[in-house]
């Protein structure tokens, strides 16, 4: 098989090929590495690569298969992991100078599960520092560029993972999504990105940003590839107290179930926030579902209009608390100073980038005396209100349809000096995080500048199987 043909294979085809010895894990890996060596210098999707380690791992998998062993459903599949997910003995920075050179003493549960299923870890992908951003420009180690147009951002914060999948440097990747950080870069890079239900995927080993919102999920070229990864990484983990005591999600068997008879609600309140081209993509996607037998109608969820404001109180507040642990004593950077307090101040001031400082300041302000009740607690009330809005919507619809990002990929530098403009990139994705429900971004064609557009399918908690069946139907009908 030619390297080009190998890059076209889905995750399941690669694993089945390697398990049945019609493919070798090593030849699959070399096809991806060849692609990576050509384009990665321009894209910069990785913060750390371990190609030698990946080769040794692929050879080991080939030997195990030849001995009659079955390494698992991701056997020989080259993957990448966002660099805020810890990997034992392998540099993990979360895109921050404050963790430069730190080597974690353990693997995150999701990494254990990927490796346990036979995946080949190629490297750690770039991100906005501590996952705070929507463009990957806030990485301390330089931005990632969109493989569709190198002058554009890949989205963020999982921009490295999205770009690596879009450029075929890996078959699939993991990201984390606190306010859209899997789905928005997936949309901007033309790949599939899944934010599963809160509690469905273990966060043991995820460097925390906002603990009531963070969720790990897959980015992949197709809905099926994402579904295979989701089945591998989901399921209860006793090491994460917020992990639901449920088995792994079962989503692959029902991907071809279709949408006949399903009630699909178009969230006009979110469509109204998008550019005309993105809005018409959502409308076209709705017509495609209707053509396939779904009952499509508009569903009003006006509460989503307040979601962005609530998110930008709650997420920074939780971040300001979570990032207190980066004090120069425990991890990474330590700037010497005569007193403990001076050491902490010097380390944090030199180690954190501007966006992280801005969010810590914002969160500290929202939690400070005099503002806690008016901002933080009030934002939590809005969160309850938003949950009621979605509960009402779920009485009328089985899934909801919305834009993923209000626009296609913007130019590097276009929003990086305007925090409010950057934060508005998250307006269509934050509602699902605030209510803990799943959502997926699926590619839906391109705009006039040949930049990918993503549409978002939202579902009630634990309804990933139905959500991904709808996504698969959209994928089949999407313009090429």
């Amino acid at each position: 098989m030619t390297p080009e043909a190998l890059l076209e294979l889905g995750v399941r085809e690669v694993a089945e090929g390697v398990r049945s010895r019609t493919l070798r894990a090593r030849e699959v890996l070399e096809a991806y590495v060849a692609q990576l060596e050509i384009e990665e210098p321009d894209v910069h999707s990785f913060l750390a690569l371990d190609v030698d380690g990946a080769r040794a791992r692929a050879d080991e998998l080939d030997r195990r298969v030849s001995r009659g062993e079955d390494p698992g459903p991701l056997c020989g599949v080259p993957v990448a992991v966002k660099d805020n997910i810890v990997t034992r003995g392998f540099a993990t920075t979360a895109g921050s100078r404050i963790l430069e050179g730190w080597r974690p003493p353990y693997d995150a549960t999701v990494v254990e599960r990927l490796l346990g299923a036979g995946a080949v870890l190629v490297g750690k992908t770039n991100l906005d520092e501590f996952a705070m951003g929507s463009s990957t420009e806030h990485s301390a180690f330089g931005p990632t560029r969109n493989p569709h147009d190198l002058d554009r951002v890949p989205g963020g914060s999982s921009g490295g993972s999205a770009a690596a999948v879009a450029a075929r440097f890996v078959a699939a990747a993991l990201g984390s999504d606190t306010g859209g950080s899997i789905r928005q870069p997936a949309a901007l890079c033309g790949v599939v990105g899944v934010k599963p239900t809160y509690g469905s995927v273990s966060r043991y080993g995820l460097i925390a940003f906002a603990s009531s919102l963070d969720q790990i999920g897959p980015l992949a070229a197709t809905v099926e590839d994402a579904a295979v990864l989701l089945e591998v990484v989901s399921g209860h983990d006793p090491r994460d107290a917020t992990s639901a005591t449920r088995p792994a999600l079962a989503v692959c068997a029902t991907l071809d179930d279709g949408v006949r008879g399903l009630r699909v609600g178009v969230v006009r309140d979110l469509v109204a926030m998008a550019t005309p081209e993105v809005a018409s993509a959502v409308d076209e996607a709705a017509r495609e579902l209707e053509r396939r037998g779904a009952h499509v109608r508009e569903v009003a969820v006006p509460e989503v209009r307040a979601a962005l404001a609530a998110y930008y109180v709650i997420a920074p507040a939780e971040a300001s608390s979570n990032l207190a642990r980066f004090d120069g004593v425990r991890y990474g950077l330590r700037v010497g100073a005569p007193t403990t307090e001076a050491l902490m101040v010097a380390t944090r001031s030199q180690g954190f980038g501007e966006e992280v400082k801005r969010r810590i300041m914002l969160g500290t302000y929202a939690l400070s005396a005099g503002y806690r009740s008016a901002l933080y607690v009030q934002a939590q009330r809005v969160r309850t209100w938003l949950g009621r809005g979605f509960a009402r919507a779920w009485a009328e619809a089985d899934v909801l349809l919305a834009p993923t990002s209000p626009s296609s990929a913007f130019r590097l530098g276009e929003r990086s000096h305007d925090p409010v403009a950057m934060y508005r990139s998250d307006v269509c994705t934050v509602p699902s995080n605030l209510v803990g429900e799943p959502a997926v971004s699926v590619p839906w064609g391109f705009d006039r500048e040949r930049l990918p557009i993503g549409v978002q399918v939202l579902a009630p908690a634990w309804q990933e199987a139905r959500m991904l069946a709808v996504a698969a139907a959209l994928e089949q009908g999407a313009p090429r």
Partner: protein
Amino acid sequence: MREGITRAEVRHVARLARLELTEADVERMRHELDGVLALIDEVRRVDVGDLAPMEHVASDTTTLRPDEPVPSLGRDALALTGRLNDDGLLGIPPITELGS
């Protein structure tokens, strides 16, 4: 009507957050935070009645693991962090300032 954040408030919050800001940083941060505070001020304008605040997504399927001892990471794993000294001990700077 929302009042803007002052330079004094920016300095106070930076002190709470253990961040050092230069005078130029203070003014830039004041300007940037003012813009973001205008965005988030919407939460104050929403009439949510007497709804209870949601701290966390409600779940009836989370549980703490059994309270049983399990092996810790161990010295070999901690050595990966590069923070063990020649005696195999984790070295940290003084974190109490007795007599200061």
